[in-house]
């Protein structure tokens, strides 16, 4: 007989949760005015309104200002290495599909060093929520251009102006097959909370880009206030072509839910594999018989 590894006990006994129930004792180290504060408090609010027991919630992150996010939450957290939050979150979710798994990061973590993982998590439709706090700059390393910095931006690493064309995260998400795509702005907390709730509730890979300005190295509050506006009320989130059209607009940056699709999640698909593979009780002896002379 095979010995089975331990199985961990689960309890579902939490009720009446308040945002403060998700706040850890660790004080955020972000600069005063950082957009990430807004994201964090919207997040507390969203998960408390959804009533997710803190011990059922896992928040994974990579490196950057955003990487500190999990430590400020009284959930289970995983502060990983730079750019690898999506594989981490995939491993957590696939080992324990009953958990609510969120991945958080910034534009450098997501679209520079971690870019190799983004399309794969999306195409697999891993049932996780990926929140990218996009400030279009490297903040923690003190102000270098990022993959979403605009052309011409003059910063420490681009003293003569940025010549690397910024990429379009929403279009990437569409191309890779994300099944929920949205965009928020840290100065719009009410809408942001609603988007986070919807992203978490969606079954499948949810990608939420949030403009979260860096007051210290690239203050874009005024810029985003001018160029953002809500998606038209008549936008149909199941219309992929329309969603992509709005995502392509570089003059007006629309906020809201761009797209939602119902597709089997990765753990659903793998359950199918298990069903297909399983033929009666498993026997290690039988496995050895295949190799017996």
């Amino acid at each position, binding site marked *: 007989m095979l010995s089975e*590894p*331990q199985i*961990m006990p689960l309890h579902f006994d939490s009720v009446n949760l308040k945002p403060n129930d998700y706040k850890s004792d660790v004080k955020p180290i972000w600069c005063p005015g950082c957009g990430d504060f807004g994201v964090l408090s919207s997040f507390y609010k969203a998960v408390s309104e959804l009533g997710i027991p803190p011990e059922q919630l896992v928040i994974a992150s990579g490196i950057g200002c955003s990487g500190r996010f999990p430590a400020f939450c009284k959930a289970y957290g995983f502060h990983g290495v730079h750019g690898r939050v999506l594989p*981490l979150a995939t491993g957590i979710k696939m080992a324990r599909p009953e958990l609510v798994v969120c991945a958080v990061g910034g534009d450098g973590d997501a679209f520079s060093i971690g870019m190799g993982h983004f399309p794969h998590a999306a195409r697999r439709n891993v049932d996780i929520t990926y929140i990218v706090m996009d400030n279009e700059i490297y903040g923690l390393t003190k102000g270098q251009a990022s993959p979403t910095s605009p052309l011409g931006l003059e910063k420490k690493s681009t003293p003569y102006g940025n010549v690397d064309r910024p990429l379009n995260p929403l279009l990437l998400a569409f191309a890779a097959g994300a099944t929920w795509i949205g965009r928020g702005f840290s100065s719009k907390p009410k809408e942001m909370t609603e988007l986070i709730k919807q992203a978490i509730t969606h079954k499948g890979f949810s990608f939420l880009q949030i403009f979260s300005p860096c007051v210290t190295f690239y203050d874009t509050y005024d810029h985003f206030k001018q160029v953002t506006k809500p998606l038209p009320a008549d936008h149909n989130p199941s219309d992929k072509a329309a969603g992509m059209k709005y995502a392509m607009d570089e003059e007006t940056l629309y906020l809201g839910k761009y797209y939602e699709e119902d597709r089997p999640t990765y753990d659903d698909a793998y359950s199918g594999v298990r069903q297909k593979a399983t033929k009666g009780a498993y026997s290690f002896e039988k496995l050895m018989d295949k190799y017996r002379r």
Partner: protein
Amino acid sequence: MPQVDFTVRVGGDSATGGIVTTGEIVARIAAYSGLEVYTTRTIPAEIKGGHVMFQLRASEEPVYSQGDDVDMLIAFDQESIDNYYQLVKSGGFLIYNSNDGKPPAAQGLNVYGLPLNDLAKQINFTRGRNIITIGAMVKLFDLPYDKAEEVVRRQLGRKKELLDQNLLALKTGFDYVEQNISRESPYHLIPPTGGIQEDRLVMSGNQALAMGAIAGGCRFYAGYPITPASDIMEFLAAEFPQIHGTMIQAEDEIAAINMCLGASFAGARAMTATSGPGLSLMVEALGHATMTEIPVVVVDVQRAGPSTGMPTKVSQGDLRLAIFGAHDDAPRIVVAPVSVEDCFYQIVHAFNLAEKYQTPVIFLSDQDMSVRVVTIPPFDLNKVKLEPRLLWDPKSIDHGGNGASGNGGGEREYLRYKITESGVSPMSLPGMPGGQYTAEGLEKAESGAPIYTPEAHSRNFEKRARKLANALHDYEAWQMYETFGDLDAPVAIVGWGSTIGPVKEAVLRAQSEGMPVAVLYPKLLYPLPVEHIGAFIENRQAIIVPELNFVGQFGRMLQAQFEREIVHLNKYGGQPLAAREVYNTIKQVYADVKVKAQV
């Protein structure tokens, strides 16, 4: 000496196909007929085209190495004839394709030409040349025809039509020899005793390793295809879904190990397998696993490097990477199996060590061991004990709990990275109320909150080192080493990994010639069992360290640790060690150190 000890080499171009299949089928026929077998192979890294060599050694006694001399050469092309005929012993055999090659003008060889192209054409099966050859061999060596049929059915029986063709090819080769080569076989492979009757499995190191992972409780695997580790992934892809495990083919090795860390954080026993280039990519995550104290097993099936190197050739060149590959001091455990059978039991130890000490464990297999097919006794699940991870018990005051169950909020907080005497801290898993913490790659307080004080940093280094030192007790208790030879001998061999086979053979030979050798193969290479190795070598006059890398990585570690002179036997051409090379070194050492041979 065994009555039967027979080495067959098969050579050809991989473009014509079936060379390795020929070898594996012959190996299985020998195994099914009651012989112990040991195979080795070199294949090109290319899919089609390039020279392929397969070698089988069969005996009625356990076989430890691929064999130094060849009794029979099966040459499918001229290159194989030219390259290998000189390796054939006097009185040995050469079977070649008489439609496509000229035999050498060598004396003392029994040469049999088989018109393989003609025979294949006769039965309308051009790809059947290798099976025709097998049929011919079965007749030449008086192997049981029914066993040959059984093997062909099991190995090639997936499609009825193809199976019929293959069975016809087998018969064609058999009949050709019966009708055209009139002399009786001088070589009866099956000993009068009928060979070994005991239960045997015929399998490779990667298969044994994958089965060990299943037995060792592993239920999560993520990996990226790489030669020669891919078949571990393929094996588990078929098995894991049946035991509620998960196998993910990741987008790269970095993703693979991070998926494993996520899964292990969530409570699963997790593993990835790769080779040198993949291990290089995993280095950052390995340091992170040490820092966050997350168990994970990383298999490195070593191949010849550096860089892309020779993907299908053997090496033991990753020892330093395995032990030291990290920024700053990020200790991890390194385990090395010594044989195909050992892959099963040591990978179980690897999982147990990872879980017990909440640390990454690197498992150093190698290309030769991974693809080699041998006969081994069936695995004994009674020998497999799973060491659990120390989980947080909220009711235990020792664990920092408040003595009550429920949703946390007690007076005492859970300390994930609590400083303990053993260095191991109780670990909570997602889902446990009150056990929330962040697995933190930054330096941290006991709670897991980031902190940069010199005190915390020093204390955590000591904690992480302390828990690994305890693995040395398990090394003793679980006997993670092998010793053999004459333990009072003046000369010692201390080695690691798959070189143990040729060493066993060489030591037996040297011993019979009055040159005794004491041998130690530790299977835990980090932390290094300093006391055990130190005591073992203390009174020896010479210490030989054989290994398959250029500088002698293990030998130099021992040199540095014990300040003793080491005789390095370094082989670095991408081939397995040969018993003769070890024997010659022993002989040389006896001559050099003027140790008097004890006749």
